C-alpha cells in the first residue's frame, strides 16, 4: 500500500477541511454557513474512509457511516429547518470584520503549526502532516464561536470546532476507541438538540437570536 499517496491524500483532505472552515469566515448568510459545514463534514467523512482504508482501521468505516448520517445529513437539515423557523436573518456585522477575520485565521493556523511541532516530530505516522491543520481548524472554530453574534452561527462554529477534533483524532490516532467514539457522537447529537432547543427559547423570549442582547446578568 502506497504510504506516500496516503499521506498526500490525508494532507490534501485536511487542508480542504480547514479551507471550508475559513470559507465559513467570509460568508454572511446562515444558509452559506450550513452549506460550508455540510461540505466540510462530507470531506471529513471521505477522509475517514481513506484512513480506514490505508491505515487498516476497519471500525473507522462504522464511524464514517455514523458521522455521515449525523453531520452531513441530520444536523445540516435540522439547521436549515431551524433557520426557517427562527427566520434566517443574515449575520449582522461580526465583532471582527471579514478581512481581519481572515488575517487572524491565518495567524491562528500559524500558531497551530508552532504549537503542534512536537507532536509532528514525535510521530512517524504518514498522516502527521495534517495534524497542525486540525489544530488550526479547532482554533478557527473557537474564533467563530467567539466573534459571531447569532446563536445559530455560534452553534455552527461549535460544530466546526468538533469537526476539528474529529479530524485530529482520525489523523493522529486513526480514531479513538469505538465505544468512546460512540459516546462522543451521542454527546454531539444531544448537545446539538439541546442547543437548538435553546435557540428556540432565545427566539421565543427575545424575539431574535442575536446573542448580543443576552447581557442582563452581570457581576
Amino acid at each position, binding site marked *: 500500500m502506497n504510504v506516500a499517496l496516503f499521506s498526500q491524500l490525508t494532507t490534501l483532505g485536511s487542508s480542504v477541511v480547514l479551507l471550508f472552515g475559513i470559507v465559513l469566515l467570509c460568508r454572511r448568510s446562515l444558509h452559506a454557513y450550513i452549506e460550508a459545514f455540510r461540505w466540510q463534514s462530507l470531506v471529513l467523512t471521505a477522509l475517514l474512509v481513506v484512513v480506514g482504508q490505508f491505515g487498516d482501521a476497519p471500525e473507522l468505516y462504522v464511524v464514517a457511516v455514523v458521522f455521515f448520517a449525523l453531520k452531513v445529513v441530520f444536523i445540516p437539515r435540522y439547521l436549515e429547518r431551524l433557520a426557517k423557523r427562527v427566520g434566517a436573518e443574515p449575520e449582522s456585522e461580526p465583532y471582527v470584520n471579514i478581512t481581519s477575520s481572515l488575517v487572524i485565521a491565518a495567524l491562528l493556523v500559524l500558531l497551530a503549526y508552532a504549537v503542534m511541532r512536537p507532536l509532528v516530530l514525535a510521530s512517524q505516522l504518514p498522516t502527521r502532516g495534517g495534524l497542525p491543520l486540525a489544530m488550526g481548524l479547532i482554533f478557527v472554530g473557537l474564533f467563530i464561536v467567539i466573534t459571531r453574534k447569532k446563536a445559530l452561527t455560534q452553534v455552527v462554529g461549535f460544530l466546526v470546532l468538533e469537526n476539528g477534533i474529529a479530524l485530529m483524532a482520525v489523523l493522529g490516532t486513526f480514531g479513538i476507541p469505538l465505544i468512546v467514539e460512540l459516546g462522543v457522537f451521542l454527546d454531539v447529537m444531544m448537545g446539538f438538540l439541546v442547543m437548538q432547543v435553546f435557540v428556540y*427559547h432565545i427566539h421565543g423570549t427575545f424575539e431574535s437570536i442575536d446573542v448580543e442582547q443576552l447581557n442582563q446578568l452581570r457581576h
Partner: protein
Amino acid sequence: MNFILLLFPSLLSALLATLVRPYRVIIGWANAGLSLVSLGAALAFAVTILAGSEAPTFGPSELLRADSLSALLMVCVAAVATLALFFSPGLGRENQYDVAQLRRYHVFVNLFIFAMLLAVSANNVGIMWVAVEATTIFSAMVIPLALTKASVEASWKYILISSVGITLAFVGTVLAYFDFVALSGRTDNALNWPVLLSAAPRLHPEVMRLAFVFLLVGFGTKAGIAPMHTWLPDAHSEAPSPLSAMMSGVLLAVALYAITRWKVVVDAALGPAFSNQLLLLLGLFSVLVAAFSLVIQRNYKRMLAYSSIEHTGLICIGLGLGPLGVFAAFLHLVCHTAAKSMLFLLSGEVLHRYRSTELERVSGLLKVMPWTGALFMGGVLAIVGLPPFGLFISEFALIRAGFATGRPGLMAAVLALLAVGFVALLRHSNRMLYGAPPQGVTMGEGSRWRMAPLFVSVSVLVVLGLTLPAPLEALLNQVVKVVAK
C-alpha cells in the same frame, strides 16, 4: 454488581419520570428513595476500598473502576443527590412549577446525577469525558424550568461556555491518546486510566504539557476556575435551588476530580512541578477574583456562587501543594460539598419565602424563619472558615501545607484574600439574617421537619470540625497515595 446498584437507580428514576405522565408526587418520592440505594452503593464502595481490596472494576475492558478517589467522590455525589432530591420541587409542598416542568425537572435531574456518578466511576478517561459533557447537557435542560429571559440567558451562556471548554478538554484527551498510540500502538483499553498511568513515564513530555494545558482549561471551565468561571454565577443564581446545590456542591468537585485524574498521569510523565505551577497560578487567581467579587454583591445566590469559586481556587492551590496539600484539598472538598449544598438548599427556602434573590430585599431571616435562619447562619460561618466547622480545619491544614512546602508568600496572599472574602460574606449575611423583616413576608417556619436532613449536613460539618473520623482519614490517605505518590 455494586456498580449497577450505584448507577442504575438514577437511570430508573429518570425512566419512571419519563413514563409516568403527567407528573405525580409519588414519582418524586420514589426518586428520592431510589437515590438512597445509590448512596448505599457508594458507601459500600468506600467500605470495600477501606477493607484494602483491589479497586473493583466492571464491564467490557474494565469500563468502570472505583479506587479510593472515585469512592470518595461517589459518596459526595450520591449524598448531595439524595439531599437535593428530598428538597426537590414536587414533593407535596406547594411550588411555582406546573406538572410538565416538574416532569422535565425529574427526568433531567436524575440523568444529571447519573452522568456525574458515571464520570467518577468511569475507568476509561474518554468515557469520563463523555459523562462530564453529558452533565452540562442535562443540567442545562433544568436551569430554565420557568422560561424567563434571565434563565434562558444563563443557560445559553452555561451550555455554550461549558461545551466549548469541555471540547477543549477532549482535545487534550486526544493529544494524550495520540502520544500513547505513537508509543505503544492502538489497544482497546488504551484510554483506561491505569494503563495510561503505567505508560506515562515513557510519554513525550512536551506533548503531555500541551495536553495538560488543554485538559486544565477544559475541565477548569467546568470546575469554575477563574477566568473560565463566568458561567457559574449566572447559572447558579438562575437554576432551581436543588440543582444549584448539586452543581455547586458536587459538579465542580467532579470537574476537579477529572483534573486530578489527568494531573496524576501528567505528573508521572513530566514530574509534578509543571502542573503544580499552573494549578497554583489559576487557583490564586480564582481566589482573588472570587474574594473581590464578593465585596460588592447584590444577589445572595450569586454570593454563594462566588464563594464556590473561592473554594475551588483553594482546592486547586491545595492540589498544587504536594501530598499534604492534596490531603487538605480533598478534606476541604468534602467539607465544602456539605456546607455549600446545604446553603443552596436553604437559599431555595429563602427565595420561596421572600420571592427575591436581591440581598436588600431579604432581612430579618432569623425572625422570619428561625430554623432556616439558624442553619443558614451556620452554613455561612462554615464557608467563611470559622470553628467549629470542618472548613476551619481544612483551611488550616491547607495553609500549613503551603508553609511546609516553603511558599509563605503565596500563603500570605491567600490569607489576605480569604480575609477579604470573610468580611464581605459576613457583611452580606448579617444584613440577611438580622434587622427588621420587610413588609408582606409571612412569618414562621414552613414545615420544620423538612429541615431535618440538613441537620445531617450540619452535624457532618461539626464532626469534621472537631475531629477526623478514622475511616475518612484512611480514605483520604489512600487518595493521597493515588494522587501524589
